[in-house]
């Protein structure tokens, strides 16, 4: 995906796109103005419009709609009924159809968007089934099985459009729709959608509300379906319940899966290829659902990014590899250079935790924990596995709801705030296992952090208005600067999934800084790092502290903790065992007992007890 962004902005890419637009628009000149091929081409355009919307929803935002046909039906019926029965102009009727479709979309999304994704799939499936029945049931409104007959083509400036005119209208709308969705995909909204799909917690850490993003994706998809429905009615001139069976929805799902979920050209390619298939399948009518099912299964198993994805991986394999960069080791001078990036000072936030309690069922994860971190200092939380360290971070960040206690961030109680709101207050975090969006570039991952800071409106982003473009460019430059600050600028354009583990941790820190974090919680940042990487991490944390930010670090690596933290809190089974300066805490016998067991104390290993080796600590 990321690779295609760069490609599309290149000159040959633009030329190919311009040539495609010319071919699409010139098509009617080569066809019989009243013939079947033009009819089919118009229908194809209608399907492409609907598929583009569904791809945004199912492909990018990961919300599978199994009843998309129903939203097309709403647009089609609204347009047909309002123009035929009530004499509305096509344009007004189509607008009403789009609004209705979007409203139904909101209604379907509202109950499900707080829940797992598959609820949404079920609800849309049920909606399509109910809607299909209702079309027949509300005979008075919809004319039942007979359908609405005689839908007239729209007029432009008083001229009723000929079939070629309708084609042009559909083609232009499809092209504009493609452009708009493309702009969304490459904006903060697009990054947010992918985050909702692949790592909802990362979206929240960046201050984005998964629920709102899902709703947005669904409303956009429903609008596209409504537009497609309006032209569906015009192009067929008759609208009947038989047009909108369950099969129709499955057809659209297969279209986007075939072309490639979450790929730019997927819906176009899928519609183009799949549109010809039912024509070929006429002899196999009774096997159609079997063929659809088998195709969906095979594609999901063997080509999850569809034809476009398969073509791209083939292309990548055939293309000569660029000189491979060394994966693990970064030249020391690069790390050195990183130190020279100037960043504005950060005014660190204080954190005050009082008597915090959290249980999971009968298991007490936090049994009254106190913690106090002064602005601009580094506090470490250590303790054996299962002692409640990560739970503490999650309750502070509101990822878990607390049972009791107080959490004050910068002196303000955070009770009742959502994780994304707390992120907006200046709380940044990294995760124990890095939550990067593997299909986006490293740079895009850092940009996700700025989700809440970016002010451009959806319309400005969609239409690429100057203000929005300027802001996007500024944030991009800042993200590059932050990547240089953490020392991975050379990997900015690589896919996050292809960057080594140690770098992923640094990218997460850059993402937190990008969000304007004034207090950063690092969850085991040193786990799995090599010695060189560990050294760089320590330097980085020192530089972040030097800027003025507050750091809370959960870590098993006691050498690192002893060296950077000014205050250490030891948790054991959800309670604070010891708290104080690193020297004092690590000399405490009770702490050592919790960490290494009683026997280790009675028979101390050769070495300094104040600085146990990490291997021993982790083995405990």
């Amino acid at each position: 995906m990321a690779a295609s962004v760069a490609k599309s902005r290149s000159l040959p890419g633009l030329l190919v796109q311009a040539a495609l637009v010319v071919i699409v628009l010139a098509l009617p000149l080569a066809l019989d103005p009243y013939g079947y091929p033009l009819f089919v081409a118009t229908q194809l355009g209608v399907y492409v419009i609907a598929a583009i919307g569904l791809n945004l929803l199912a492909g990018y935002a990961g919300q599978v709609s199994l009843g998309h046909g129903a939203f097309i039906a709403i647009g089609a019926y609204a347009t047909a009924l309002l123009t035929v029965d009530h004499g509305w102009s096509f344009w007004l009727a189509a607008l009403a159809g789009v609004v209705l479709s979007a409203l139904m979309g909101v209604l379907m999304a509202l109950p499900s968007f707080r829940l797992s994704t598959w609820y949404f799939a079920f609800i849309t499936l049920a909606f399509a089934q109910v809607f299909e029945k209702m079309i027949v049931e509300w005979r008075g409104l919809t004319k039942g099985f007979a359908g609405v007959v005689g839908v007239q083509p729209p007029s432009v400036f008083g001229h009723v459009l000929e079939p070629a005119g309708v084609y042009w209208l559909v083609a232009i709308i499809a092209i504009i729709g493609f452009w708009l969705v493309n702009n969304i995909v490459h904006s903060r909204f697009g990054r947010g959608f992918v985050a909702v799909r692949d790592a909802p917690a990362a979206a929240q850490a960046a201050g984005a509300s998964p629920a709102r993003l899902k709703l947005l994706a669904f409303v956009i998809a429903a609008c596209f379906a409504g537009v497609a429905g309006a032209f569906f009615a015009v192009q067929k001139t008759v609208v009947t319940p038989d047009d909108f069976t369950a099969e129709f929805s499955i057809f659209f799902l297969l279209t986007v899966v075939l072309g490639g979920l979450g790929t730019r050209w997927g819906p176009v390619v899928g519609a183009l290829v799949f549109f010809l298939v039912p024509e070929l399948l006429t002899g196999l009518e009774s096997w159609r659902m079997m063929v659809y099912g088998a195709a969906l299964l095979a594609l999901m198993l063997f080509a999850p990014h569809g034809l476009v994805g398969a073509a791209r991986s083939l292309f990548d394999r055939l293309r000569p590899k660029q000189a491979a960069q060394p994966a693990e080791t970064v030249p020391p001078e690069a790390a050195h250079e990183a130190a020279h990036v100037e960043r504005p000072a950060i005014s660190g936030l204080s954190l005050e935790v009082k008597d915090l309690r959290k249980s999971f069922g009968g298991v007490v994860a936090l049994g009254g924990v106190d913690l106090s971190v002064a602005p601009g200092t580094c506090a470490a939380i250590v303790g054996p596995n299962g002692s409640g360290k990560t739970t503490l971070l999650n309750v502070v960040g509101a990822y878990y709801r607390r049972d009791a206690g107080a959490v004050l961030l910068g002196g303000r109680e955070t009770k009742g705030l959502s994780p994304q709101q707390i992120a907006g207050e200046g709380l940044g975090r990294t995760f124990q296992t890095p939550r990067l969006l593997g299909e986006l570039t490293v740079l895009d991952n850092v940009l996700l952090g700025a989700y809440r800071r970016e002010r451009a409106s959806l319309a400005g982003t969609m239409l690429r208005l100057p203000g929005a473009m300027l802001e996007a460019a500024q944030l991009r430059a800042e993200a590059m600067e932050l990547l240089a600050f953490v020392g991975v600028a050379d990997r900015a354009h690589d896919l996050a999934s292809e960057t080594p583990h140690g770098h992923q941790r640094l990218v997460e820190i850059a993402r937190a800084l990008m969000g304007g974090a004034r207090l950063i919680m690092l969850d085991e940042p040193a786990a799995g790092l090599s010695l060189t990487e560990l050294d760089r991490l320590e330097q980085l944390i020192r530089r972040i502290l030097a800027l003025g930010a507050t750091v809370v670090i959960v870590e098993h690596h006691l050498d690192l903790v002893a060296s950077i933290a000014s205050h250490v809190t030891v948790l054991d089974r959800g309670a604070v065992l010891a708290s104080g300066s690193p020297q004092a805490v690590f000399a405490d016998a009770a702490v050592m007992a919790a960490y290494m067991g009683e026997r280790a104390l009675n028979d101390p290993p050769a070495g300094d007890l104040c600085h146990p080796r990490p291997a021993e600590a982790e083995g405990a």
Partner: protein
Amino acid sequence: MDIDILARGLVAGSLYALVAVSFNILYRPTNVFNFAQGELVMLGAMIFASLATVLGWPWYAALIITLVGVGLLTLLIDVVAVAPVLARSQHGTGWVITTLAASLIIANGVNRIWGPDPIVVRPPAPLTTDTFSLAGMTVSAYQIFLVLLTIILVLAIEQVYRTRQGKAVLAVAEDREAALLRGVNPLRLSRWSFFLGGAFAGLTGVLAAPVLYASTGLGPALLLKGFAAAAVGSIGNNRGALIAGYLIGVTEALGAALLSPGYQEAVVFLLVLCVLLVWPHGLFGRPFARTV
């Protein structure tokens, strides 16, 4: 309004509860909500009808073959359609599409083998579907048996979850990695859950056959009402599913009686939407979410 609506609602509701329980059995350790479940119920009804009614086998033999057959097919769905997708990404919802695909394949395949005509299935003696009057309701012995058996099955399954194996299932559902560390094999449990969830769907089909007749069109409606019962009763909660099943069955019967039979799906759908709006995790509690 007559009291028959209540009887109809309880009978239909029992069936929805059974479908919901079959969803839950499969969902608890795997977190997969199988979209082919409706067609598996339908397949169970068809196999049993063919063996018992058409071929005249004794009911217990037909029942065993049905349960094993549907269970094995569900296991095949796991191996072919679900496990490979989950192996690629634990968070993805690719399985929504692959289990839907399995559902399309089963529906079309069964339709081609059996055709659209329903098969009448008689319950084993002494149960009959002959109706009589009981406290003002028109009921049959089989209907009473079905309602009672559903309650017994739900309670029995709750007991199973109290055993060692049952607790392992719950442990895996809650935290796959932690369970693995304590010697539970999640892969084996997933396979078993698919087999048992499928077999239970087959059993549901067998039990539904005398009431609804065995027909290839049963799948989609049972899928959605089973989902409705599971969601309203809180996913994974079998007692919740039972009560939600009754609620949905009675609501549907009321909608059909007061409005028109054509509205019964719409009424159920509205009920589910409203419940989920107010209680997103259903009426009977929310599962733990330990995600980060």
